[in-house]
């Protein structure tokens, strides 16, 4: 496959996999559902048109560990769920009726069988699911622990490894399998360029960010300017710890990441990430797990800071939860906390547990490890709890139905 060069400051006009779809009936408000993956199954919250009332439905895949549950924005119907039970191996389940019925993948993500005498790898769980871009209907990617990359071309029924990553001898150099990330080292971000489905970025805990321009056949580290947490060199070629990466659907040369070592932005074709988290208040810091982009404004981004000092408590600093928003691509940040607990709110929001819908004004949603789900229908100005007492939340995805 031909290597493509990254176009400078290209703006996508067509619909991308993550861009808001053009609605044919502009008078009808979108129906938003919030897909929640938890340690004990998945839940679906159905909102009314004004997003003021929510009905919790579930659990689906009850008792299973659901790391990610995602609706295909290309058909607004296909739901994929990455699940494993405590005892059983990992699999992927598919539903086209919002979870009433599920079909298991006939070939779930799995490494190639190693030659005799060689200890081979086994997928421990699928952590991240994403559809490819709009040019490849039915194509999905999956990121796993240990960090590996899989592709399905039939809507999630069968999966095969991308050998350029999984069989690459550098894979275990870049992302050591002995990495001590809780629950195992993961590939947690797979970003598909909406202009070109062969142009991919991935993010791996304890490994860094990597780029491919040939559909995953070859890869190169993309970590310049990003600090590494467990390295004698402050800025090594790889070994960084991105927690969550995002690419803007309308300006795909703009990337953001919430890293173990701060918040960063990169505007391609540059290769040097800028630590935009330096402009966060010093008392709060710029450590966290998730990062959320405004789907219509490449300069607007939200984070959920956590305490990354001393022994890394990983909860809201001082027990005062807040999101922080930047509207100038990270040059400055403002605190948004109205409606959230003013004290004793020791929240941890995991990397896949903060998301946005595509309504106007934008709706934001986050879930906590203590099983609370919060939403803002006004771009973060005020927040209210829409579910509580759920199991430990791993992922929150807002999706629009037809």
């Amino acid at each position, binding site marked *: 496959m031909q290597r493509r060069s990254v176009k400078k400051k290209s703006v996508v006009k067509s619909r991308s996999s993550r861009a808001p779809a053009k609605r044919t009936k502009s008078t009808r408000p979108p129906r938003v559902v919030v897909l929640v993956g938890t340690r004990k199954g998945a839940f679906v919250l159905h909102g009314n048109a004004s997003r003021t009332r929510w009905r919790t439905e579930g659990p689906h895949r009850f008792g299973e560990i659901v790391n990610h549950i995602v609706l295909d924005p290309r058909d607004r119907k296909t739901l994929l769920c990455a699940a494993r*039970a*405590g*005892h*059983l*191996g990992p*699999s992927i389940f598919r539903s086209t009726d919002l979870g009433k019925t599920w079909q*298991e993948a*006939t070939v*779930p993500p*799995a*490494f*190639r*069988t*190693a030659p005799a005498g060689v*200890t*081979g*790898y*086994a*997928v421990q769980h699928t952590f991240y699911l994403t559809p490819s871009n709009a040019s490849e209907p039915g194509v999905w990617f999956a990121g796993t622990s240990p960090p590996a990359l899989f592709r399905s071309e039939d809507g999630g029924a069968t999966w095969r490894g991308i050998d350029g990553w999984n069989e690459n001898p550098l894979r275990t150099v870049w992302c050591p399998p002995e990495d001590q990330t809780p629950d195992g080292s993961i590939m947690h971000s797979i970003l598909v360029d909406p202009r070109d489905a062969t142009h991919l970025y991935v993010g791996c805990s304890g490994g860094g960010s990597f780029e491919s321009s040939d559909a995953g056949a070859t890869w190169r580290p993309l970590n310049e300017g990003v600090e590494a947490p467990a390295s004698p060199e402050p800025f090594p070629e790889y070994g960084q710890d991105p927690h969550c990466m995002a690419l803007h659907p309308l300006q795909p040369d703009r990337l953001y990441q919430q890293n173990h070592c701060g918040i960063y932005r990169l505007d391609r074709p540059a290769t040097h990430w800028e630590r935009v988290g330096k402009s966060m208040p010093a008392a709060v810091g710029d450590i966290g797990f998730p990062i959320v982009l405004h789907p219509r404004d490449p300069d607007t981004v939200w984070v959920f800071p956590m305490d990354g000092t001393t022994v890394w408590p990983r909860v809201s600093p001082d027990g005062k939860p807040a999101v922080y928003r930047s509207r100038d691509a990270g040059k400055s940040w403002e605190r948004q906390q109205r409606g959230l607990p003013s004290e004793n709110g020791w929240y941890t929001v995991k990397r896949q547990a903060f998301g946005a819908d595509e309504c106007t004004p934008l709706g934001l949603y986050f879930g906590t490890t203590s099983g609370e789900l919060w939403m803002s229908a006004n771009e973060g100005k005020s927040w209210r709890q829409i579910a509580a007492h759920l199991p430990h939340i791993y992922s929150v995805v807002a999706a629009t139905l037809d």
Partner: protein
Amino acid sequence: MRVAIPSPLRSYTGGREHVQACGATLAELLAELDAAFPGIRFRMIDEQGRIRVHMRLFVNSELARDLEVRLIDRDEVQILCALSGG
């Protein structure tokens, strides 16, 4: 031979606690089980042929360490789930 199925795997067997299957080894038995109940093997055995960490396979109450254990028709195979945390 008779195979005891634990509750986490009964979604594959239509709720049946016991099923019948044949094979000269555990590997053959599991291949036959998977043909009858597609997907069941991968939930117990990883892609390298290793018994998953929280699964236990017993042949006549003896723990099997791998899938090369030989079987005869009157053997009884029990598939059990070990502890896996909270």
